[in-house]
């Protein structure tokens, strides 16, 4: 069968199965299990209503349990065991963790992750806020917004390929096709730089890719928040004599503070999990290792499932508190 046809069939079957599940299970609950008639009609309706949410939530809970909760448990187990050659496992306690902590590459990844954590959410949110404010009142603002938002539609790997070309290096006697080197040479640089091999700076060059992607996300959310600010508070500030900058920083930003925090933390979580960009551009060489790529290296290149799982647990432990805080913030925002 043609693969496109196969895909289409999968979609049709999958969607109708979902609809059928909800419709039929609902019917079963109302007509067979707790019918709304007979002497206990009222009690049956109440019971059916108590069960219904769980019935509808079941597929989601089941899928999440299977694909999220179980893997977490399994990763934890793997991180505490060692594989025995020829099959089977043996209890290893915290050995994998101590081995990981002893590795300089792990600490390099932690350091780089912290750098990413400080720089990327801050720059993305700041640029997003700036773009949201500047595109708000101008005629071609929507076009500008679409352009800024567009990188969101590109996969991380795709973006990495684009930026690899930006940082491209050719021998000095050839034309530079990488725009950064082209500019550098045009400004009188002595010889083309291999940007991605300059330690510490290369981290920054990688971060710019993610900032480029996430700015659009920050802009869209913050732009909606800015529009939600009552226009009259701005007018009152104008009458009170505030300058445009004062209005922005003293009236507008404080009013969308919670949204800024949610955007910031959401990007923070993305940053902690960053893998594709580093994998596709430097693969962790030249001191650009990050935790997720470190985990991938250990798991699938070194085949060291114990240390790989241990690093996965570290990433989860770092993300979890931010996630909890983020959800709590988002809930407050909705109230």
């Amino acid at each position, binding site marked *: 069968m043609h693969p496109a046809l196969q895909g289409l069939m999968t979609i049709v079957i999958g969607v109708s199965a979902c609809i059928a599940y909800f419709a039929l299970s609902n019917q079963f609950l109302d007509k067979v299990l707790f019918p709304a008639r007979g002497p206990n009609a009222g009690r049956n309706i109440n019971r059916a209503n108590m069960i219904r949410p769980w019935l509808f939530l079941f597929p989601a809970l089941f899928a999440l349990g299977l694909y999220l909760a179980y893997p977490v448990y399994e990763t934890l187990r793997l991180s505490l065991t060692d594989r025995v050659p020829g099959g089977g496992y043996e209890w290893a306690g915290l050995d994998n963790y101590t081995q990981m902590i002893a590795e300089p590459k792990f600490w390099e990844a932690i350091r780089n992750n912290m750098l990413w954590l400080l720089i990327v959410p801050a720059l993305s949110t700041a640029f997003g806020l700036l773009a949201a404010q500047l595109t708000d009142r101008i005629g071609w603002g929507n076009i500008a917004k679409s352009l800024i938002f567009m990188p969101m539609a590109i996969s991380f790997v795709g973006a990495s390929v684009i930026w690899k070309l930006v940082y491209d290096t050719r021998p000095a006697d050839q034309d530079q096709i990488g725009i950064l080197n082209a500019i550098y040479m045009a400004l009188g640089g002595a010889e083309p730089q291999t940007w991605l091999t300059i330690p510490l700076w290369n981290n920054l060059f990688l971060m710019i890719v993610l900032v480029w992607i996430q700015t659009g996300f920050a802009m869209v959310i913050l732009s909606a928040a800015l529009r939600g600010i*009552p226009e009259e*508070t701005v007018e009152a500030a*104008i*009458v*009170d004599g505030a300058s445009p900058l*004062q209005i922005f920083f003293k*009236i507008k930003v404080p*009013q969308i503070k919670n949204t800024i925090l949610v955007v910031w933390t959401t990007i923070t979580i993305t940053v902690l999990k960053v893998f594709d960009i580093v994998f596709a551009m430097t693969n962790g060489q030249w001191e650009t290792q990050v935790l997720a790529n470190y985990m991938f290296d250990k798991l699938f290149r070194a085949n060291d499932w114990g240390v790989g799982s241990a690093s996965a647990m570290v990433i989860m432990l770092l993300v979890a508190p931010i996630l909890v805080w983020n959800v709590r913030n988002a809930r407050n925002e909705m109230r």
Partner: protein
Amino acid sequence: MAELKLRGVEKTYGGNVNVLRDINLEIDPGELIVFVGPSGCGKSTLLRMIAGLEKITGGELTIDGQVMNDMPPAQRGIAMVFQSYALYPHMTVRENMSFALKIAKKPQAEIDKAVAEAAKVLQLDDYLDRLPKALSGGQRQRVAIGRSIVRDPKVYLFDEPLSNLDAALRVATRIEIARLKEAMPDRTMIYVTHDQVEAMTLASRIVVLANKGIAQVGTPLDLYERPENEFVAQFIGSPAMNLLPGKVTGTGAQTTVALDAGGVAVSTIPTTDADLGKTVNIGVRPEDLVATEGDAIFEARVDITEALGEVTLLYFESENGVEDGFIAKLPGIHKDLRGTTVRMTADPSKVHLFHNGQSMRT
């Protein structure tokens, strides 16, 4: 002391949509001027133009002789109270009230003193460290007023400040604003409302806006007793003035009008022989109608009565030239009049005459 002048002021959107034209108005120092008019008449737009929040597209605005057309709002010596209060939600009452002075870089001692004074006048002392969301509607509006008092402006602008309050609070706050005005006799206030009770009770002069321009300017009782046109006649007073078409049949110190529906009306508005035979509308306020056995302005069946206690409203059936919405307001309770036919007339001094929509009073 601030005197405010509008000369030929107009507002056009996008070059061709005209919402206000040729507004001429002189506001004396210490006046409380109320802009009233139906929704969409441009009263709020005019206020926002004075505030500097909307651009004046034609004509000239002067405050104390200085042209203000292109002056930024903060330098016009005005303060504005918004309908939605427009408090800064992230600032406490104290910060809200001191914001303008902080922006103007006034010394802290002066700011504290001004805020304390305003808070005392408005009984907000106990709420200074609360956020707006912890205040009731009335308190929020008082903070909004306090925010303008603190700046001690020459001109106060109020944009429907009571519309978001419930009925009881509206009356209380209205009286508070009247007191505030009394305490500051030299400050000019401009007040926009669609509520004519607010207009009648607060204003030293009312500006009725309609049809992109000013329909009439005058003291509240002027507008009530001597409306210059049918629009003002029907807009001021509740229920609205009744209008009946007819022809002038007698002129002189008193004018006699034979109404198309057969009745006769006499008015103390003098006319000349040139007016004889003119088509006019007579206007009588519901509260000026009285029952009579003799010559009647009209005779009609009472469709519905509304007894309000101190007065009874009679709604007439539309017949004999009496139109829908024709109303008489009689003192006392008269529920028994429902379904009966009554003859109504009015004192000649209370009968208004309009020709082509304009009052014949000169």
